């Protein structure tokens, strides 16, 4: 049943999602081809053609950037709007009379969001790979300047994991905002949902902001004693700060999951 739910969630997103991905890959391929020709032409006396290729590369890069911004903005909006329709509109009558648990309904939507986040990352990776690959083939400079230390690769990997996790957290926050908004409001559920999304986000920012402020104050006092300025002091404070942030977000994620689950099970409010 879970996979069937996921199948329908993915089916609803795939048309626009794959369309944007296809556009990105086309721009990525065009940019890579242009870079290949340009890097081949540089150093040779090709005159205007080189300049045109350069302009082309800049234009394709801009198109690609715009398409990537659209992708990273449009997909979350698409998934969030579909969640709203599925849960809070008349479609909810169908969703919640299916012989499946609320947990599976929520998880299938999170899985759909996760798959699209991974696809976004793949599209970005393929575009970068194609362009850098072409540059490497013609100039051989990319490989030489790439950092090959294990820890650098580890940090890059961690950033990718962090991006995926924070994106998933944002989806969970959006879903929770919609669930609360639709349960609380009798009318204007969409507006109420939006209000709760912004509200929860603001609350979290307030908490983490206050925490950051606390650490800054601690750092100022620590600087006077000289302990904070030491390498061990800086690392310790950063580690504690990072761990506390992680705990706050983990607690918020668990809280949002159980709150959504409870509200959808016990307080469902289909008009």
């Amino acid at each position, binding site marked *: *049943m879970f996979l*069937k739910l996921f*199948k*329908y969630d993915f089916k*609803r997103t795939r048309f626009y999602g794959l369309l944007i991905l296809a556009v990105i890959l086309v721009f990525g391929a065009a940019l890579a081809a242009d870079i290949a020709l340009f890097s081949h032409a540089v150093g040779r006396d090709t005159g205007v053609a080189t300049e045109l290729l350069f302009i082309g590369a800049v234009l394709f890069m801009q198109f690609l950037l715009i398409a990537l911004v659209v992708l990273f903005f449009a997909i979350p909006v698409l998934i969030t709007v579909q969640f709203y*329709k599925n849960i809070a509109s*008349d*479609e*909810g*009558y*169908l969703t*919640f*009379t*299916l*012989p*499946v*648990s609320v947990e599976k309904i929520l998880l299938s939507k999170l899985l759909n969001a996760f798959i699209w986040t991974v696809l976004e990352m793949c599209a970005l990776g393929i575009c970068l790979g194609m362009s850098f690959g072409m540059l490497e083939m013609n100039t051989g400079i990319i490989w030489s300047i790439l950092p090959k230390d294990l820890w650098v690769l580890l940090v890059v990997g961690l950033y990718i994991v962090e991006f995926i996790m924070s994106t998933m957290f944002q989806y969970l926050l959006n879903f929770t905002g919609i669930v609360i908004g639709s349960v609380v409001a009798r009318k204007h559920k969409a507006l109420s949902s939006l209000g709760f999304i912004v509200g929860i986000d603001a609350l979290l920012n307030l908490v983490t902001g206050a925490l950051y402020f606390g650490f800054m104050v601690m750092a100022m006092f620590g600087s006077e004693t000289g302990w904070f300025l030491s390498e061990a002091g800086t690392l310790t404070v950063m580690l504690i700060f990072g761990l506390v942030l992680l705990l706050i977000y983990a607690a918020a994620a668990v809280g949002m999951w159980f709150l959504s689950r409870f509200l959808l*099970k*016990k*307080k*469902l409010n*289909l008009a």
Partner: protein
Amino acid sequence: MSESIVSARELTKKYGSFCALDRMDLDLPLGRIVGLLGPNGSGKTTLLKLLAGLLTKTSGEVLVDGMEPGVKTKALVSYLPERTYFGSYMSIEECADYFSDFYADFDRQLAYDMLGTLRIPLKAKFRTLSKGSREKVQLVLVMARRAKLYLLDEPIGGVDPAARDYILKTIIGNYNPGATVLLSTHLISDIEPILDDFIFLKEGRVVCAGVADEVREAQGKSLDELFREVFKCF
């Protein structure tokens, strides 16, 4: 009396301070078509939603086939809400696929046969259908399940008399004979011929219930007349 498919004791549902169902006792036997009748705000939709698992009770007990409404009972209950719940982007065929995927008791051939009589193309998108056609398609899919309990909320509300006849024929002709149909409506005279039993609801309470034929024979009244008598406005 035969085995009960629905059993409620002291069932209460409150929305804030408003009591939609007030300590209701109810037993629905298997194999009957039961009319849930009452004025607006009497608790008909709330009762159907509770049985469908869309709402949770405030207090009391409600059992569907001996179980609390939940994932297991949803597999046994075929519910038709007042609203159109299919996405407008879906085609009729996709709606049937959806039912087929999630309900093991869905009879696709029966649904296609019924849709064939409506002459609605399977490839047609839901958004292109008229309101009446949407309601008919939804009813066809709901009735094409071999469910134990059918919950139909105002199935003939908002459609023309010809469509009402089609809907009533669809209900009588296609429901699982061993199952119970509980349908709510204001249009008593239209559904009276198909009812085995009736329940009158008023302010969240059962004020009168019985066998339709007995009312006609013993009191010489139609259900419509009895309804007007019970719910007379002063």
